[in-house]
């Protein structure tokens, strides 16, 4: 079966590189094609990369608390750029301090993200969701 492509990166002025490498490795081992943009990635870079590589998913990490500002408008820009059906995942320390997770999740879903993950999520959880969302059989 054709490999599905994920564009991966850490958004905004965020330089946390370790989790990004772990995710790249995990997604790749799970059989996905990973286009890893690394750290300090802008919304436009995510979108350009997704266009050229015909990616099915953009997976955004944010670990420094500014995720809300950095991610706002990404869905609209995707639509504007012709990426109508792309899946948007986001995870990490998305907001500062101890805020209610339910609220944070809702905030990001309202911004157009399909999946929102709290800190401490294991890659396997996202991989299971990816398989489900992309219509791949579990364990394929």
């Amino acid at each position, binding site marked *: 079966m054709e*490999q599905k*492509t994920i*564009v991966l990166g850490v958004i905004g*002025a*965020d*330089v946390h590189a370790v989790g990004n490498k772990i995710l790249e490795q995990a997604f790749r081992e799970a059989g996905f*094609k990973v*286009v890893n*943009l*690394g*750290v*300090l990635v802008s919304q436009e870079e995510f979108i*350009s*990369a997704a*266009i*050229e*590589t*015909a*990616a099915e998913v953009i997976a955004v990490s944010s670990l*420094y*608390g*500014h995720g809300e500002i950095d991610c706002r408008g990404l869905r609209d820009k995707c639509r504007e750029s012709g990426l109508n059906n792309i899946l948007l995942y986001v995870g990490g320390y998305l907001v500062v301090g101890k805020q209610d997770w339910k609220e944070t999740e809702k905030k990001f879903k309202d911004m157009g993200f399909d999946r929102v993950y709290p800190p401490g999520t294991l890659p396997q959880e996202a991989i299971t969701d990816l398989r489900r969302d992309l219509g791949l059989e579990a364990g394929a």
Partner: protein
Amino acid sequence: MTEKEQALLIDFGSTYTKLTAVDLGRAEVIGTAKAPTTVQEDIMIGLENAMRRLKEDYGVDPGRCGRRIACSSAAGGLKMVAVGLVPDLTAEAAKRAALGAGARVLSVLSYELTREEIERMEALKPDIVLLAGGTDGGNRDVILANAGRLAQSSLNVPMVVAGNKNAADAVKDVLIEAGKDVRITGNVMPELGKLNVEPARVTIRSVFMERIVAAKGLKRAENFVEGVVMPTPAAVLAAAELIAKGVPGEPGLGELMIIDIGGATTDVHSVATGDPTKPGVTPKGLPEPYAKRTVEGDLGMRYSALSLVEAAGVERVAKGIGQAGQAGLGGRKGLEDLEGREGLDEERIRSIAQDLNRHTDKVPVTEEEYQIDTGLGYVATEMAVERHVGYLETVYTPFGASYLQYGKDLTKLECVIGTGGVVIYGRNPRLVLQGALFDQAKPDLLKPITPKFFLDAKYILSAVGLLAEIAPATALRVMKRYLAEI
């Protein structure tokens, strides 16, 4: 009888047909000559005129040179249009591949081509279209749609396809169906952020030899030479690579930059990795080719004198010319800069540029004319190098400042070579080339800080690039012999 030990290197330029004869055994230039290019009537007339001069002036019989090869920028050079998908990604990669192949890039287009863009392409009459788009396994729709539109267009020129390999077959079928000449080659960007310009360069070069040489009326020359093997800018880039890398047993000069200031364009070639030289800098954007060429069509000494003033602004030009005056050019009545307010106001600058634009064959004679040329050359160099080198962007993160580097960091580059009339025949080539230097006022631009400056004193860079085809070690020795440090 021919002398195996002699090579005749020919450059069919847009204005002059230039000859360089080299004694291969001694690695010595034994004669140079030039005559106006005659591509309209018969390319051989100009070539024969130049050869006659070579014989008269140096006693070198071109007919007896055992090796004869040529490059050409006659009849408009190799004109190309590059098409990609996203402007910053495959469109930019396609542009770089075309420039690296020595082309004049007339236009760079992205996304799905519109009817208006196709019409514009038809009007531009390129020699080759380079069609890219999508990483391997990535987007297929756009390159396919563009192939469909090119198929329907009246463009009847070779199309080099260097896009998503998974779309290549379909693209080929569509274009062949329409009777186009199609060449499939490696993707200019097989993976995101990975530049792969070499296969496209090689393919463009073979199309140039097979088709373009004949289309430009150069076929007759091929009865006399072994081949017109590449466009002239590609020969200069080949020379740059040779001088930088060296050959086994003969070391090169290391990473370098060549600045070619012409009448119409200013070309900058850098052969360098351009990796960050400071810690904590993250490279961003498309990786750069190791041998990179940029062409500034608006910066030149004659045809482009007006656009140079336009691009630089009157003040900058005035400053450049004033600086040449301070360096001792211009004689007692030399032109001062704007602040000096002596004879160099806006009107004067514009009239100077207009005059040069109208008289493109003008050679400086008076002190003042030398001063003007030196000043303009300085500004052209300064701007062309600014556009060629990379830059740093500062990003403030919660953990302090971070730096992003776009393009090449050439701050540690040790060697800058100048060529073109204004440096070779000018009064102060060093001042012209100092335009390439790092500027404290613009610390984000990664220009060389303390390079050595060299002069292509015999104007043989393109000849050396050609000679590298048949005798690289000799070509390198010839170049080293005639490079003058200034």
